[in-house]
């Protein structure tokens, strides 16, 4: 019953938000999902991690919804670079368990202990050490434009998004109706 109610509300929102949806899609150059050949996630990210360690910065497509709204599933790419140190606010590729990688944002740092959370996650967090981080996102590559990670407007939005964490689930609900 609850699922049905959610679906109905979402459908209603989609109808109401149609002008914004079409504007959003036009602005971001959304096309229907192309058929793509995919490698197993962890094997691929493990290889990307190796490349970053070799000093070869690389751009990857992002899979999953855990970094919404800033990075969208299969639509966006991110340019990753290795750094000596990482800090709160950085979106990083990190190994949180042997062979298991995530691309999430650092929300807390205590020395070398990092706490990560996906922008699109409401509760779940991960922890890792500084040395488990392979690289940081330095460019957000959308279909129509490339946004550097140090863009002041983007940083402000990320900070605001963090502050709105208490109502994040409702904002994401609305966001899903637009995308």
């Amino acid at each position, binding site marked *: 019953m609850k699922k049905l109610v959610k679906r109905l509300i979402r459908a209603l929102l989609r109808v109401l938000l149609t002008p914004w949806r079409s504007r959003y899609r036009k602005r971001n150059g959304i096309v229907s999902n192309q058929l793509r*050949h995919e*490698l197993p996630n962890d094997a691929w990210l493990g*290889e990307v991690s190796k*490349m970053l360690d070799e000093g*070869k910065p690389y*751009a990857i497509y992002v899979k999953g919804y855990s970094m919404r709204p800033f990075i969208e599933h299969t639509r966006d790419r991110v340019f990753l670079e290795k750094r000596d140190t990482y800090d709160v606010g950085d979106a990083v590729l990190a190994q949180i368990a042997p062979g298991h990688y995530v691309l999430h944002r650092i929300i807390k740092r205590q020395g070398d202990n990092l706490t990560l959370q996906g922008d699109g996650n409401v509760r779940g967090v991960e922890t890792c050490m500084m040395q488990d981080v392979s690289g940081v996102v330095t460019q957000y590559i959308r279909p129509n434009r490339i946004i550097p990670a140090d863009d002041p407007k983007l940083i402000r939005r990320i900070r605001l998004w963090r502050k709105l964490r208490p109502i994040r689930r409702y904002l994401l609900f609305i966001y899903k109706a637009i995308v």
Partner: protein
Amino acid sequence: MRIKKGFELREVCGEHIIVAYGRENIDFNKVISLNESANYLWKNIADKDFTAETLADLLCQEYEVDAETAAKDAKSLLDEWVKVGLVEV
């Protein structure tokens, strides 16, 4: 002709794939999967200058194929590489 800077052969899950790293290749959003023979050719011309003839010769050395077929296949592969953007003149 040469392979462009930043294009590299890597092995992931038993597949031979070409990735393009570095800021200069940020717009290259593909990952190319090579078959057995393309993989063999790539490994032998990776850091060198080459032509379609070079590739044809390599094919003749490794596989039982006549010169004409090798030349045709080599040209076809090279055209594909140029089209995708892996190669610079």
